[in-house]
């Protein structure tokens, strides 16, 4: 009796020291994150540019850069859950084109052949909110088709979304009759344009920030919360880590995957709506090759194309880096055609870094 009562505490003692060993400190965890090093790089570039080019650190330049990368950044946010599940969405650029044309057509109030008369004549069907709702709906449908083909039919994401890239762009071109849409209804278009082209949400903030950038910041925080704090976010990571295991433990893998693709397409739709509002015109070529920038942003920020890793902040900082480099090159007088070279190098560098870190972990 005395023996067992002694044995139990000593067994506990044997276990507890191991449990008490310090887990990774916050600092160690931060230093291990790719987004941390991208942030450092970004700060360095900004510091150098501020000294060398007086124009760089102006409010106007900040306003323009942040607005420009907001369009890509919002898509990179939507891309992140898809990449975390181990998928990819190549169709987001084309979805932007389609959404631009759908929203633009609504604002034009030109009769559409295949719609009934009451629709073509009514006023509310051509209001600014219908332009937004139908634009988002067009994006959601594209995402739904992607998601169902990938999750339920079991086709590879690369192939499905590559097909959608082509198909959706073609629908956009046909719907627009190969024309650029502008000259929107003045009353309704004013509100629509204010959303994407306005600043500070119309509030007096004491500094100028574009609406798209404000929306981008809010969505970054939102996605960050969702990925960290919701069961859905956890399931996204579980699917990317081990889809089979997620399935066996009762995660609704197929449904979650479809939702990820719908969210990704919705982010592209939102980006297109803001972009049309900002430029005041809708072009069926909107978003061409943006899918690569969105994917690059997420990957540079630390999303792993093999799945299982990625953060909202990473998408944010990744898109910021791409556009600050762009802006810096322009200011430094480098031929703008070199931009692609830099973006490409950064993508490859990001993946190399990921490899190195992955090796060290094992």
């Amino acid at each position: 009796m005395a023996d067992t009562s002694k044995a139990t505490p000593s067994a506990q003692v044997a276990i507890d020291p191991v449990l008490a060993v310090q887990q990774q400190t916050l600092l160690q965890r931060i230093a291990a994150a790719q987004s941390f090093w991208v942030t450092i790089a970004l700060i360095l570039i900004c510091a150098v540019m501020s000294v060398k080019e007086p124009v760089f650190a102006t409010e106007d330049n900040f306003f323009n850069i942040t607005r420009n990368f907001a369009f890509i950044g919002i898509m990179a946010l939507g891309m992140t859950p898809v990449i975390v599940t181990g998928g990819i969405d190549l169709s987001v650029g084309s979805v932007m084109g389609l959404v631009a044309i759908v929203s633009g057509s609504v604002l034009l109030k030109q009769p559409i052949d295949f719609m009934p008369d009451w629709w073509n004549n009514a006023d509310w069907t051509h209001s600014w909110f219908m332009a937004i709702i139908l634009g988002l709906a067009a994006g959601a449908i594209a995402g739904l088709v992607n998601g169902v083909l990938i999750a339920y039919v079991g086709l590879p994401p690369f192939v499905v979304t590559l097909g959608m890239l082509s198909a959706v762009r073609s629908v956009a071109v046909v719907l627009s009759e190969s024309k650029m849409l502008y000259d929107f209804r003045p009353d309704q278009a004013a509100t629509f344009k204010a959303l994407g082209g306005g600043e500070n949400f119309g509030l007096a903030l004491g500094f100028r920030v574009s609406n798209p950038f404000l929306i981008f910041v809010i969505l970054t925080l939102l996605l960050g919360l969702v990925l960290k704090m919701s069961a859905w976010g956890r399931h996204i990571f579980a699917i990317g880590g081990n889809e089979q295991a997620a399935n066996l433990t009762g995660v609704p893998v197929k449904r979650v995957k479809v939702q990820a693709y719908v969210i990704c397409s919705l982010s592209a739709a939102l980006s297109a709506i803001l972009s049309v509002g900002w430029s005041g015109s809708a072009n069926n070529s909107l978003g061409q090759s943006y899918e690569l920038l969105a994917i690059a942003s997420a990957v540079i920020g630390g999303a792993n194309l093999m799945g299982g890793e990625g953060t909202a902040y990473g998408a944010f900082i990744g898109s910021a880096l791409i556009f600050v480099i762009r802006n810096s090159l322009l200011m430094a007088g480098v031929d703008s055609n070199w931009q692609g070279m830099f973006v490409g190098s950064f993508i490859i560098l990001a993946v190399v870094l990921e490899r190195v870190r992955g090796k060290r972990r094992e």
Partner: protein
Amino acid sequence: MPALELTGISKHFGAIQALTGVDMTLEHGEALGLMGDNGAGKSTLVKVIAGNFPPSEGEIRIEGRTVHFAKPAEARAQGVEVVYQDLALCNNLTAAANVFLGREIKKRLGPLQWLDHNLMARRAGELFKELKSETRPRDLVRQMSGGQRQAVAIARTRLSQPRMVLMDEPTAAISVRQVAEVLDLIKRLRDSGMAIILISHRMPDVFAVCDRVAVLRRGRKVADKAIKSSSPEEVTGLITGAIERA
């Protein structure tokens, strides 16, 4: 009333016949060792019981009620827990996240729900302690040893009060000391009235904890008898086919 009754369970995948007419009963507080060579149908049988896929033919009764599971969650709701052969863990998540995967503990405020990370980590820590495993709930599974991973997989089955635990090779990837611990755990589960099916290649494990042994060969059950009236030699013969039937 038996905890589990299988009658005439068959399963084929296209032209491949994985299981043919398997009958089996399992009482509460009984541990059944399920043995057979690779491809004999052991894992398929477990997956049929666990609701991973429905049987092509036959009937499953749990405590007398006929059940049809469309997915693992439904089987779990009926008290059937599984430890899978490959452990079904996500390397990129923490131990606690893996334990609670698919049934996360959430806090609620109106329509909002969010994960209760602290409570899940604490509960997972308690389960690991109960299993006498040196596993930290907040560590990534990627960094863990075979035994720790095993503990995570087994801790999962302890979340609910299961009626039945199916274990597919629970001792395959762990150290000798940990094997003893897992076997101890199986005994404790059995003594608490749970029905257990233990799939194992390791004859000593089966003879150490099981009350009965069943042998599958090419999808058919060729033996089902009390451990006391059998021997490792006989079971080996049944697995290989040297002994036709027992």
